[in-house]
Every structure is written in C-alpha cells, then in structure tokens.
C-alpha cells in the first residue's frame, strides 16, 4: 500500500545502510531525506521539518542520543518523532533512547523490507495520539 508521501529523514554514517533503507522506504511511498552525521541532521530537520527521523546512534562527531536531545530541546523540532536504528541492543541503551525522547527503537541488523511498515505503524499511532503508548513499548521490549 502506498502512503501519502510523508517525509522521513534518514541519518546514518554508513552509505550502504542509507542506500538500502532509502530504496525500501521509497517503495513504501515515503519521501526520503538523508544526512550522514548529527549536525547535518539537525540542520536538515530544522529546515525540512520531516514527519519522522530514523536515527543511527554510533556516528562520528555527535552520537544519535545527543542529536535526539537537541531536536527535543528546540521547540521548532521538538514534535518531530524520532526512531533509533542501532546495533546497541542493551537495556540501558534502550533507556537512553527513551530518555532522549524517542518513540521507537529498531535494533540492527533488521530486515529493511519491513522498515517502511514500522514507520507507517508508528506514524499511525502518533496520529491517533498514542505517543506515550509507543514510548512505553520502547522500554518494555
């Protein structure tokens, strides 16, 4: 099923990862914006106001948690939902993601075929006003 062109900002320092994710998100009908590191991501989020940010954690110069906190702290970007995509799978890492304000947490490696579906599901629940429910699931997983 094709979506109505919501825009997703994809932040990852690995070009291969970005390419694979972009192809799958576009196949699901999303418009994909790309950033390779934190500061670029912050600038783009402010300029483009994407509907959702898919955010890698381990990146040079600024880690994903920091990027998310900065998005949160700026009123212009604080409502943009953030979903982390990271190899960090420990419980403590999830908690750090939660504390950085995320609404989703996808552990690498994941099957990119279902990435679009995950984004769609998240946006629907947010549209239904279930932001907190999503956040709780993030912790409980």
């Amino acid at each position, binding site marked *: 099923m094709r979506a109505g062109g919501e825009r997703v900002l994809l932040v990852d320092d690995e070009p291969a990862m970005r390419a*694979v994710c972009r192809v799958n998100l576009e196949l699901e009908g999303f418009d994909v914006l790309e950033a390779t590191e934190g500061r670029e991501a912050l600038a783009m989020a402010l300029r483009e106001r994407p509907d959702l940010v898919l955010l890698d954690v381990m*990146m040079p110069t600024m880690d994903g948690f920091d990027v998310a906190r900065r998005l949160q702290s700026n009123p212009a970007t604080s409502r943009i939902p953030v979903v982390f995509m990271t190899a960090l799978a420990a419980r403590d890492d999830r908690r750090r993601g939660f504390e950085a304000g995320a609404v989703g947490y996808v552990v690498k490696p994941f099957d990119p075929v279902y990435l679009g579906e995950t984004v769609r599901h998240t946006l629907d629940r947010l549209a239904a006003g279930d932001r907190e429910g999503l956040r709780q699931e993030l912790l409980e997983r």
Partner: protein
Amino acid sequence: MTAGAWRRHGLAALIAVGGPGLITLLALSDTDQLIPGLLYMLAVASAAAAGGIWSGLVATACSFVPFDYFFTGPGEGFGFTNDDLVALLVFLATAIGVGWIIEREKRARDAAARARRRAEASARAAARLRRAAEALSRAVSPDDVLDAVLTSGVEAAEARAGMIAVLSEDGTDLVPIAWRGFREGLSEQWPRFPVDAPYPMSEAVRTGEPVFIRSRAELDERYPALAMGPDPTYANVSLPLIVDDVAVGGLVFSFGSDQEFDQERRATKIALARQAAQALQRARMYEAVRDAESRVSFLAEASELLSRSLDYQEQMRHLAEIAVPRLADWCTVDVLNEHGGIERVALAHRDPEQTKWGWETHQRVPLRPDSPFGVPFVLRTGEAEFLPEVPKRLLDTAVESEPELAEVLDRVGLRSWICVPLKGHDRVLGALTLVGAESGRVFTRADFDLAAALASRASLAIENALLYREAERRGDAGRALTYVGDAVVLVDRDEVVRYWNRAAELLLGVAMDDALGSRAAEAVPGWRALIAHALPADAETGKLAQSVTVPVVVSGTELWLSVAAVDFGEGRVYALRDRTEEHALEQARTDFVATASHELRTPLAAVFGSVRTLRRDDAEIGDANREMLLSIIERETERLTDIVGQILLADQLGSDTLHVRTEACDLRLLAQEVARAARVRAPEGIAVEVEAPETLPPVRGDEDKLRQVLVNLVENAIKYSPDGGNVVVSVDVSNGNGRIVVRDPGIGIAHADQQRIFEKFTRLDPGLSRGVGGSGLGLYITSELIARMGGTISVDSAPGSGSTFTVELPVEA
C-alpha cells in the same frame, strides 16, 4: 649520823637534861633527891632520844615510881609532895622535848632518803630509756623494735612479753607483726583484730591514749570480750604508736605480776612508745627500701632466666621456682593453648610435697574456663586481680559455685592473691598467679607492681618462644617458598606480616625486612583493596583456594594481581601473582570481540538488507536501484574480506609466522595507487592528495605489505576526518631514509594516547560512542609490518588539530 644531827641531838640533850635539871636543882630543897633525880631524868631523855615521844613518856612513868618511892623521903612510901610534882613535870618535859626534837629529826632524815631513792630511780629509768632509744635507733625491722623495747622493760624487771601490731592498709584492722615472750600459738590465735573491737590495744590505737591494766581482775572487768581464758595474765600496758599525730599501730607489754603504775612509770612507757613508733616507722621505711632492692634484683634474675631458653614451658617453670618462697607461697603460670584451652605450665611451692599435691589437685580439679574469678577470669578479660587480703565471703562464694574448690582452698589457706595477665601484643597469652598463704604474707602494691613487671617479661618470652617455634616449623617450607615465582605472604591473626618471600619483594616493591613484623596494610599501600575480594579457603576443610584478579596500585603503577588466600590456625597465607599483562590482553580481547563483531556486522547488515530488498516481490525496484544494491553487496563483501584478512594478519604477526619479503619498492607509485583507490571510496568532502618529487630512490621492503601500510594510514586519515578536508600523502627521502607522511585535518589524538594506538586491539573509544568502526588492529598491523621491514613509525597530533603519521624506511642500497 651527820654533824648537824649530832648538833641537833646535843642540843636536845642539853635542853632535855640541862633545862629541867637546873630548874629541879633550884626547886628541890632536898639535895638527897638531886643526884637520883638527875639520873632518872637522863634515863627519860635517853629513852625519848632513842624511841621518840612515846618511849620518853613510858620512861617517865617507869622512872617516876622508883624515884618517888626511894628518894623523895625514906619510908614515906608514895607520898606525893610538891617536889614530886616538880620532878614529874621535869621528867615529862624532858620526854616530850627530847622526843619531839628526835622525831622531827627522824622525819627529815626519812624524807631525804626517799628523795634520794626517787632520784636514783629516775636516773635508772632515764638510762633505760636512753639505752632503749639507742637500741631503737639501730632497729631495722619491727622485730628489732620489739626487742629493743622489751629489753628495756625486762631490765626494769617489768615486762616479760610484748607484741607490736600495725594498722592494716585499709585502716580497719590491727595486724600483729612481732611477738616476744608469749606462749606458742598465741600469734596464730590473733592473726589480726579490728580497730573498733573492745580490746585494750584497739582502744589505745583508737583514742591515742595508753591503757594501763593493773591485774587480771581489772582486765576481766574492763575488757570481758577479750576472754583470755586459762592463760596466766597479770598487769599489762597497751600503748598507741603515734607518728606525726597519727596512730600507726600499737605496742603491748605484759607483766609477770600485778603492777601499780605511778605517774613516772606511765610517763616512761609513753616516752618509750613514742620512740618505738619512730623506730617502727623508720624500720618499715627501711624494709620498704630493702624490699624494693630485692624486687629489682629478683626482676633482674627473672629476666636473665627468661632469656636463657626458647622453651617457654621450661622458662615458666623456672620463673615459678624462683618466685617461691621469696615472692609468694605459691606461684603458678597458666597459658591459653591454640584451641583456647587453659594449660598450666608451672606450679611451685617451697615444699616439693606441696608442689606434688598441687599438680595432682590441678589434674583432679581443673580450672573452669567460665569461672567468674581467678585465672579463668584474668585469661578471659586480660584484667589483673589483686586482693591483698582475700575476704572470707569471696572464698565462700567461690566454694558455693564450685564446691570442688573447698578442698583446694582449705589446704592452701589462701590469704593474699595476685593474678596478672601475660599479654601478647594484643591477645592474652596466659596468667601469672602469686598466692600468699601459710607465711601470712599480705601482698602490697609493690608486690603487685613486681608481678606485673614479671608478667610483661614473661609475655615477651612466651611470644618469642612461640614465634621461634612457628619459624622453626615453617623453616623448610619457608626456604622453598623463598624462590617460588608467586609472591607468598603470611600474616598472623593481627595481620602482622610473618613471612614475605623474594617474589613478594619484587611484586609489591617492599623489602622483606620492612615488611616482616609490620601490619600488612601499613607495609603495602592498597593492601586492604587487594585482599578485599579474596575468598579464603580454610586449611582445615582441604578445599583449594579460588583466586580472584583485582587491580592494585603499586608505586604509582596499576597492576592486576591474582590473589588466593588460605586460612590456617594462626593466620592466613596469600599467594599473589602478577597478571597485569594477561589482564590487559584479556581486556583487549574482550574489546576486540565487541569491536570486531560490530565491524563485521555493519557490512553484513548492508549485504543482508540489499539481498532482502532485491528479493522483494511486492514492488518494482527498478534497474538503477537493483544495480546500486548489487554494488553494495560487492563492496561490503570486499570490506568483510579485508577485515577478516586483518584479523588473520594480526594473528600471524602475533605468532611470528608472517613472511616479509625484501625488494625494491617505488614509494611514489605506491602512494598514487593507494590514493586513487581511496578517492573512489572516500565520502564527499574528502580529497586525497599525493605529494612526491619527480624522482625518488627505491626503498627496501615488501611491496604488498607496504601497500597495506599505506592503505591503513589513508583509511584512518579519512575515517577520523568526519568534517572532510584534504588528506595528504607525501613521500620523499630524508637523511638517507625513505619517508612517507600521511596528514589529515581530523579529530586528532590526545598526547597520552599516542603510544597506545600502536598496541594490539587498541581502539581509543571502545564504547563505540563515536561510532567510528575499526577492528582496533589497523595501526598495530601497520607498526608491526614497518618494524619487520626495518622501519619506524611515529605520530604527531593534538586533539582537534589533525594527525600526522610519519613512516621511515631504509633506502635500497
């Protein structure tokens, strides 16, 4: 008769005879009566002169009758005439006058004699007092004092016996200290008596006034409580001994007969008592000094004896033997054995029979460890017991709770008690007991102090002996342990180091001499942290000790030491091994697994994601996307191959199985080739430049390995320059060496980390938070390869200012 007396008698005769005679001659007309009258008058005067007035009067009566009958008139019988009356009066006057004079003379003579006798007696008493004073001044013991006093009494044919008693330390009792002349057994009957008892001496001491008793009857009447019984008792005197206005005791004289005590005798006795008191005080001081001297010499002897042997049981036996009877009637030494039991190691009495009995009784009636007093108490608490005079009720209490003691106490006749602990440096090793019994000795504070001094010397001796024994027992094992590679440390229960081998010196940096005898925590900083996690095995259970590896800072360096501990009876043994290198390697391996798996997972995720995407059948991917995904698979697979290759290479380097060829290499060509390949893969914003002179002599090396070095350096330069910029590779020859310099504008490396980066498995950021992937092997491999080609690598960098790596290689000859 003195001249004066003759004169007085002459006068008397003249008055007696001349006066009346003259009157008679004048009065008597009849001359026939004159001669007989004068003769009779002479007789009367003689009688009065010889016998006094009364004999004069008798003589008058006897003279007048014949005078009147024969001479007043022949044949007239007893006719009383005027002449007769005159004669009678004359006779009477003569008798009375002469008698009066004579009697007065006699009274005067008697008074003079009495005065002379009194003076003589006083002189004798004074002489006795003086002699007594002299004797007293020489007296050096209470016995001497009593002798001096009694000698003086006996010389006066007065006292036959005497006794001196002094006030007990608490001032409640009088304790006889010297007896003379009393019957056998009286001293046992009167070991002491209260000051407030209704006895003469008690009263004298109490009031400070002497008590004089003239006879047994008076004694029984005034002091019925004394109840002297059938003993023959006569007069006696009780005198207080007063020094500086304070009664210190009493002196009693007993006489062999009833006596009167006039003022002078009383005064003499009081003076004697005063001198005796002074002498006694002096004697006691002298005794104290002599005691002190004897204590010092005793202590010296004991110390000498204790140092003579290393067998403490033997030492304690000797100690007890010299303590009796000089210091006490009984002496025992008990020690606590390693199981906490009480073991008697010495028991001594002057009489071998008594000693034998003592041992037998001890076997039969052992000490109760939980006893609330005596040796068990002292051993348990480490507090001394000192009872100068053991109260009867205490003994009764003891017997009540431990009936078996009755027999022991009965035979010993315990009177005075000292029990002092033998203390090790902080545990009670044993107890030294001194008992005063049949000798009647009462321990003083000085005795107690001596016992304490003795105990401290004995403790030291025991400790030394125990240490020696321990050392001996460990001797052989110890010699072997000295050369064991692991540090072996033995501490006793107080954590005092008792063994410290060579490896411990090297490992912990503390010399054996400094460590031995010190507390481990004081000798080794960080000791507590070191042993905090050690789980001691118990030598008794036979389980082997588990070792734990903990960090500890020794002389500023962090070491990782494995610690195993084993408890045994007297302490704990620690075996320590330096595992710093193993620990570092282990840590690096752990980090490596984390980083390498991440590093492998990233390209694998890309490959997997690409394949899954290519296989999607729910949507049209498009040719361009398909082509891109396939090239991702190709590239990431290559990357995987590289990583695996690096791991293998590092392993070969580690096991020294890598073959490095030596050939001529063209640095310029190599640099251009690597830069070209890097540009293809470099992210946007990164430029890779090569600076090289037109011609360059070849260097000596392995071309493949050298390419690997260049690739690693350039890839690092790109990877750590996230903000883009120019990565410059320059090659040239300088000082006869070929030189490669790779310069980047990246994040730089802190000075402290610049050496570490060449070590195996080192990534400056094992937490991966910076997100820069890497196996942690790149620079290790690089530096190892360069070293094998005879070259060197160095780095110049600062955080935020980029890094410059410089490789120098020998030029091909």
